[in-house]
């Protein structure tokens, strides 16, 4: 009897994943907490000229140079206007098999959530502004709010960075 309970508990554990949710504008996103190394208060970011717009710049993280990405620009939502809630989430992502440390700039960090994988709903292919492959799925949080669970490794895949990069470069030339 006891053994059975334990087994059930184990099964349960297997399906539960911990996520860190954060806010970008009006929307809430979440990333697998295992990818998160640290959450930093906003500090001065050194802009790197000629970098794509979503690359906000670099900061010093314990003596190393950490690139910071403006997630709102990345998702086409307009640059983040900093406030007291603005945070940098330090992530360890795999870009084409290579571990890269980077920071994402978000409007606010919300909470740590325990989400049952079985309850994750597939993201609707129409209706979201975000490319389907960026999203692992949606999770209903309360009555009518959804949290978008991000596929963080894919968001920073090299191809995507290059694509956006060329776009901004072209845009830059037009402005000139």
């Amino acid at each position, binding site marked *: 009897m006891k053994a059975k309970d334990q087994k059930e508990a184990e099964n349960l554990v297997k399906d539960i994943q911990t996520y860190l949710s954060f806010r970008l504008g009006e929307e809430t996103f979440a990333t697998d907490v295992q990818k998160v190394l640290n959450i930093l208060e906003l500090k001065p970011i050194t802009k*790197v000229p000629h970098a794509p717009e979503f690359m906000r710049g670099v900061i010093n993280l314990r003596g190393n*140079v950490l*690139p910071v990405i403006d997630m709102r620009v990345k998702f086409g939502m307009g640059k983040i206007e900093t406030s007291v809630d603005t945070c940098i989430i330090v992530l360890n992502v795999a870009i084409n098999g290579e571990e*890269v440390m980077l920071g994402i700039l978000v409007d606010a960090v919300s909470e740590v959530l325990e989400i049952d994988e079985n309850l994750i709903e597939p993201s609707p292919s129409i209706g979201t502004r975000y490319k389907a492959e960026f999203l692992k799925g949606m999770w209903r949080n309360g009555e009518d709010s959804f949290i978008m669970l991000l596929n963080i490794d894919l968001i920073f895949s090299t191809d995507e960075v290059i694509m956006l990069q060329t776009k901004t470069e072209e845009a830059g030339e037009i402005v000139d």
Partner: protein
Amino acid sequence: MEAFREKFKEEANELISDLEQLVLQLEGNKTDQSIVEQVFRVMHSLKGGSAMFGFTLIDQFTHLLENIYDKIRAGELQVTEDILDITLNAVDHLRRLIEETDANFAELAAANKKFIVRIEQVLNQNSPKIENVRLILDDEDVIRKTKTYFISFDPSPDFFQDGSNPLFLLDDLCQLGEAVVVPKYSRIPKLNDIDPTECYMGWNVILTTAEGINAIMDVFIFTNNRSKIEVQKLSDINLLADKSYRKILAETLANKESIVIEALHSLTQDLEKIHSENETLIQRKSSASGHGRDQTISSIRVSSEKLDDLINWVSELVTIQAQLSLFAQQNHDAELTPISEEIEKITRRLRDDVFSIRLIPAANMVTRFQRLIRELSQNLGKDVLFETKGTETELDKNIIEMLVDPVMHIIRNSMDHGIEDTIDERVANGKPATGKILFNAYYSGTNVYIQITDDGKGIDLAKIRRKAIEKGIISPEVELSRKETLDLLFLPGFTTAQSITNLSGRGVGMDVVKRKISDLRGQVEIETELGKGSTVTIKLPLTLSIIDGLLVRIDDTHMVIPLNSVYKVYEYQHEKLEHAINNLILADDERVPAINLRKHFNFETPPPAIERVVTMEYNDHYIGLTIDEIVGEYQAVLKPLGTMFKGQDFFSGATILGDGSVALVLDPNKLVEQFAKNEIKIGG
């Protein structure tokens, strides 16, 4: 030394070939002692030279191989097929070992060990008597314990007559280890009886050495038989290591000149007893610490990862130290300021020392060029002499590693396209029949220069131009300076060779050379004289990871410009710059093109009323960078910007400032190149 090393390598290769020949001869006449004698001699020469010139593996290996032939010579072993096989295999193995470098040392050492085991098997099969061959296999065994010896030395009265000097022998003794030398005066006669040509002195010596008693005896080996020499082991431990024992021993010897060895022994036993008591105490305190190897080691092999780690930590320290200096400056604390200054001094020393560890002489790569040239002269049928200069010039190990390929390519070019195809062609031009390629390395300022010069055909500028027009790279009406024309050689896909050879025409071109050099934050230039030859000059920074730079500010962004690029700084009213025609500013009566970084980097805030222009040299021209303000000199520890900023290669990285913020480190060469491509013609 490198030149001798090279010479020895050639010699060794000949010796190895001789050995091969001899072994084949021996196969036909297995009992021919004269051949065995020659084999022995060849191996002896190999051993001697390899030890002399730092080929440790060959030294080790031949030493053991020699054992076999020593036994054969002494009649203790018979020449068998087995032994001949092993020796022939050994010949091949030696050919690999002679290419020993720091890079392949570990690999070769492993192969060596395996081979030595094979030889050992043969030795043991044939003669179970050899038990000391294992000695050289394990360093553990070779390093002997330091022991204490007593030496009584009484030179014969006629000692001076054959030119000997007892003090030299004492000197030799002292060099074996640590010694307490106590003179014996008792043989000195009264002043009137002294014959100045005679030796009356004697000495008692307590010596601690790890060399063994034979080494001590060896010191006296050429001493005449009339002198009295007595050597005895006193103790298996280093008695002189303890200051108090040392004092006791010295005093005892001074008081009792003709001390009986038994008395010394009993004294020693007492000391040993105290010592072992202390020892157990110490061991109890720190059982983890290994038994100290008493032998002094003058150099050790350290893995480059460890060095890289060390350099990373020093870089961290430099960063933190900058933070401390800033803090001390802001706080005006009378106690803190001197401490911070002292730390700054020490950090700088430490930085320089640690970085110098990673510096290795250019000679390390020259071997490979030498081989390349030898190989190519055979393949191409060109007689070429390779000369080197300044091979002692030291470069960062990482730079050397990355430099080998591009330099190989340049040399290949010189061999292939530079040096004339036939001797007749050279002689007709009044040149010596043998072509020459010179490798020259030297320092200048904070840069290292590597030059490859050949005395070949030189490059025909008209031909380059024709080709560039043909390829549509330039239009026929464009006029190019000499330098600009030569720079065309660095464009992708540009080669002046008539036909594509398998040596240098294919695959990488000078554009790749240039790219690789510029990855090292270096520059490359070609100079040539038709009919006389060409010189390729590579200019490189001294180290890759720390840059002495000028810290500047544009808006709220700090940037570091490497000091080795900076020529001068000027101040201008903003309007003056604003109205400069074609971005040309007047610096010391010279018109210099300036890149306005504020504009170039799209800073949107209004510029200050007074701006600064930092001028720097770029390909024999001056070019300016307009910035807001100079902050000061700064030692920048270079941190990579990472893969996310691949497109921003006009920054070689970033660095952490004292206040913890990040400054970007400019790569002026790349910046100017990029700018030149889009905006202005440099020096036009």
